[in-house]
């Protein structure tokens, strides 16, 4: 994505000359405080919003906004929105996960197979025939992720995947996302201000503040730079704090810290 500027109809500039290259890492994190423009950015990535200036480039081609190209494009790029209630459309879990597949007219056996696989990956097998409104928030989140993972998209966007989730659900999401990257060879893009989550999940970071990218780089480089984080109203991840202030070695996950016997 290059030099994208997006203005809302009332001339509020939501994104200002933002350039983001999603090929810089397999797990890209986009961090920023509330209202920094993360969600708007995603809408631009997906071609739902058309940038007022600049362009979205996918595989060397500029994204075109006619129906056909958008459908082709979205077969490669999927998204999980923040609010699962809005994402789920059908009232039965199986039908909801199968919704996109059916729209693309896959055969019923293929759908069955793919839905089963998606449910296995997201730990939602037990929910198959349940109506969506009997699920907890975390379960709904998993179902909405399952719905996206049925398509073999190479890039998946996650808008605030951990917002409002309890500890166990968060760990579960972490596992699911890692599975997508390591087992299925997808690339993921995660937006969040849950810094610990981003720190443990992503390898390349963009910091967004008031609609502009104020920094980008490898995870450690960004997170160790307190100035940048403060400017973007973000917290230092716990493990960075442990490293900087408690003089622990820099770990990538909490387990490593607590099972480390050297200190």
């Amino acid at each position: 994505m290059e030099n994208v500027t997006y203005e809302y109809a009332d001339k509020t500039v939501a994104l200002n000359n933002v350039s983001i290259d999603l090929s810089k890492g397999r797990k890209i994190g986009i961090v920023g405080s509330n209202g920094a423009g993360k969600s708007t950015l995603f809408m631009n990535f997906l071609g739902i919003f058309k940038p007022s200036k600049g362009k979205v480039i996918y595989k060397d081609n500029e994204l075109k906004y006619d129906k056909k190209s958008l459908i082709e494009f979205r077969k490669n790029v999927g998204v999980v929105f923040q609010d699962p209630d809005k994402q789920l459309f059908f009232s039965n879990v199986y039908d909801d996960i199968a919704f996109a597949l059916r729209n693309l007219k896959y055969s019923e056996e293929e759908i069955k197979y793919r839905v089963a696989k998606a449910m296995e990956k997201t730990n939602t097998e037990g929910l198959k025939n349940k109506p969506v409104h009997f699920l907890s928030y975390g379960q709904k989140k998993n179902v909405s992720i399952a719905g996206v993972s049925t398509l073999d998209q190479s890039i998946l966007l996650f808008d605030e995947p951990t917002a409002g989730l309890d500890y166990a659900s968060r760990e579960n999401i972490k596992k699911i996302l890692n599975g997508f990257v390591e087992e299925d060879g997808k690339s993921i893009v995660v937006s969040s201000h849950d810094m610990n989550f981003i720190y443990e999940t992503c390898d390349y970071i963009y910091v967004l503040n008031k609609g502009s990218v104020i920094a980008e780089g490898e995870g450690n480089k960004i997170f160790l730079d307190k100035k940048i984080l403060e400017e973007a109203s973000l917290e230092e991840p716990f493990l960075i704090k442990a490293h900087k202030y408690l003089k622990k070695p820099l770990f990538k996950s909490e387990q490593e810290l607590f099972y480390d016997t050297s200190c």
Partner: protein
Amino acid sequence: MLIIDSLAYTNKFSNLNPFVKVLFSLAVIVISIANSNIYVSLVMIALVITLTLVGAQIPTSAYVKMLLAPLVFLFISILTIIFSFGFSKVAVSNFVFVKQFDFLNFYFGIPFGAFEKGIALTLRAISAIVGMYFLILTTPINQQIKVMKKFRLPSVFIELYVLTYRFIAIFFEEAGEIHMAQKMKFGYDGYSNSMHSLAILIKTLFVRIMQRYRDMEAILEIKFFDGNFYTEEG
């Protein structure tokens, strides 16, 4: 989501063949409209209500609440059918019950046969309503789509039906949330507060629904929705 939606999934008839349920309700509705015999209507209402409450085990309190809403409207419109008025003695000559008002020489009363007509009409409407309720309370929306597909209804109609159904749910969700938020801030203490809050509620509701509509549009687009709702058979 909507209570009718969750009931549709949890009732005892939920997994029954949807065609049977749809045909049954349709039959009830058609018979209610065609029939003008009070006793037939009464028997049918009793039968359908029993089936809904005892057979499908829909909770009685929820059911009564649901029935009350249309009944209020029904009652008001029936009043206008039963009672009539006229401005001269001739015009009201066939009235069974007449009351004269001196003001403007105004006659008010019940014309001959109007009472019977009103009752028959009420029963007819009620039996059509309970027939419709039987359908929406026992048949989840995806089963309804399946049946509509089988009957080869145009996909535009099905699309409209499903989106309307979804939007009723969204409407109530949003209205409920706003109302709750206002209530917690004492928005409904006293008459003037209530009126003020209600005005804001309506305005906010409109804005929010437009927003929800846009969100939904985006999601449908991302999931490759093409105007058709596909169910298992294709």
